[in-house]
């Protein structure tokens, strides 16, 4: 089962490598990982999308928590949450037909064309993983995908629940 873990940790040299190392050392799976400092620059927040059954997930959460520089870890997928991922994708748009078609698909998915070249469009789209996958598949049926990059997902709990240092 796919899970999204949010981790709050000290923003120090080596703290990211401890997390990544832990996952590979214990044969846990990383589907995607994003990291950046928070509004409090002494803290970083990592979002990891992972896969595993309840037993594996329990170990992951415990093992991450055990790392000295981790303050908190939570499984966002346990409760209602919002998740988003950013996609930048460059596709072939050679003639009028493919240009209109790409534009139309982008509009339907509420994406934005953010750059154009002689023969290419670059599109930006945010959403959850399912939406991004659907968008990529639809585009692939219509034109050639030249390059794409995904940010990996970030997430946050709905409502009052929050992941904070105190």
């Amino acid at each position, binding site marked *: 089962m796919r899970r999204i873990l949010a981790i709050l940790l*000290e923003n120090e*040299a*080596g703290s990211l490598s401890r997390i990544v190392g832990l996952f590979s*050392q214990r044969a846990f799976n990383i589907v995607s990982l994003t990291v950046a400092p928070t509004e409090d620059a002494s803290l970083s927040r990592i979002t990891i999308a992972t896969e595993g059954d309840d037993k594996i997930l329990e170990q992951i959460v415990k093992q991450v928590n*055990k790392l*000295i520089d*981790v*303050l908190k870890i939570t499984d966002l997928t346990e409760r209602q949450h919002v998740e988003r991922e950013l996609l930048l994708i460059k596709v072939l748009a050679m003639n009028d037909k493919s240009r209109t078609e790409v534009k139309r698909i982008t509009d339907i998915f509420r994406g934005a064309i953010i750059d154009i070249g002689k023969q290419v469009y670059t599109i930006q789209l945010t959403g959850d993983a399912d939406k991004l996958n659907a968008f990529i598949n639809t585009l692939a049926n219509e034109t050639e995908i030249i390059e794409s990059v995904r940010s990996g997902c970030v997430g946050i709990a709905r409502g009052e629940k929050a992941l904070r*240092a105190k």
Partner: protein
Amino acid sequence: MSTELHTGAELVVKALSALKVKYLFGYPGGTVLDIYDALFKQQDVEHILVRHEQAATHMADGYARATGEVGVVLATSGPGATNCITGIATAYMDSIPMVVLSGQVPTGLIGDDAFQETDIVGCSRPIVKHSFNCRDISEIPNIIAKAFYIASTGRPGPVVIELPKDLLMPGQSAEFLLDAEIKMRSYNPTVKGHHRQIKKAVQAITQAKRLVIYSGGGIIIANAAELLQALVEKLNAPITNTLMGLGGISGLHDNFIGMLGMHGSLEANKAMAHADVILALGARFDDRVTNNVKKFCPNATIVHVDIDPTSISKTINAHIPVVGLVDIVIKQLLAELEETNYLINQENNQDWWQQINQWRNEKSISYENEVEGGKIKPQRVIQAMYQATNGEAYVCSDVGQHQMFAAQYYPFAKPRQWINSGGLGTMGFGLPAAMGVKMAFPDSHVICITGDGSIQMNIQELSTCMQYNLPVVIISLNNRSLGMVRQWQDMVYGGRHSSSYMESLPDFVKLAESYGHIGIQINSLDELDEKLAQAFAIKNQLVFVDVLVDEKEHVYPMQIRTGAIDEMWIKKGVKA
């Protein structure tokens, strides 16, 4: 007010002395020469020069295991630091408090593949509790203090500190400032068990008909042996120890049913298999205990007390998990038993003991006595060693058959008496560990029980023993082979002895003598007791006792692979 400024090297030494470090085990080299210079100019911290950095880590480890204090190591960057890896991993697996100070190339050269540069923090990352890259001289004292705090609290473990040379040299300086209290917002080890879990645990324990207490190294680390004994007696429960937990209850206590696991006693493994409640205290259901986890004690309710939440339900699912320091949790359990006016159900208890005593009567920890003029049995040597030391020695073991024989045939009366690499199984651990113990307890008998294979993995330390006058007694059960490997080859690989012979052994007596020690060889049973007594009578010189033992002997009992915990070979060809 004038402030006194110090070099980074001086700050390191001042911090160690402020933390009351007596011994620093290490080996010099380019990046740490400033620390060596600072050490030279003071008296508080004594540096012990080993002959190989691996031995420095094991020495610090042995010192830590015997005293409960943090063992401290100093090594130079590059090869010095990488030589520490095995010792760090050994300490990590057995939860031993250790701080390793490693040199590093100057900050400006890091990343350039400079001479003797290795990323020791990266190399050691999977085998440390934590590590620090020092990048600012003023941080040195507090980083060292934090390292000690982390190494010694919660579930202890090794901490590595990397110190670049430019931070240590004259040129930069800083005040010696130590925070009065160590505070880390991200590290607060749980200490007390949750009261609801304590109540649940006591309920399960008091309703049990066939309770077994299974305790491990956590009892030793937490100094909880007396409390454990009180609990065992309060419940009149049978107790078994892991290899790491031996001495947690006296090996002579009536309720002790022996070690469990791969080479455990029949009664210990049977009792576990038949238990309806297992109370695990500071143990972690290691695969050398459980055998096949799928067949592990299916009918038992498992109460698991451990300071480390990751140990709980990792291999075996715990029905009642209790996270906390094991000494504190035992106190809580005792208080709850008191409060609920617990009385032993005599009938159930007697039935259970009757069953256990039947298993005990099979005397699974036994061996066939020597035939007249035959070879000495290794087990017999351990028994003789026990007699000769009145059961009071520190026994530091290497890894192999000799280790298992020592665990089986030397009942340890006290915690910290038995010192061995249980988790990693590091050959070469025994001698340096014994040296570390001898540093801490110069007036006690300290034995290194070893084999002809293991002893050669750190034999160079005989030289260190000479330099610092460390009269440990080395007892080598010399079977002219890598016995434990050969045993597996006999049992599992059709008797094909692939690379398990030691075909060119040195003359160990002469070898010991060449280092200025005493060497004794024993090759017949008649002289065993007498010569061992002689060896232990020599107080001020190291004695190397080379005992030629029966090379055909196997360690029994032995669990049958992929079987349940109590499926074992009792002796050759005989199943339990």
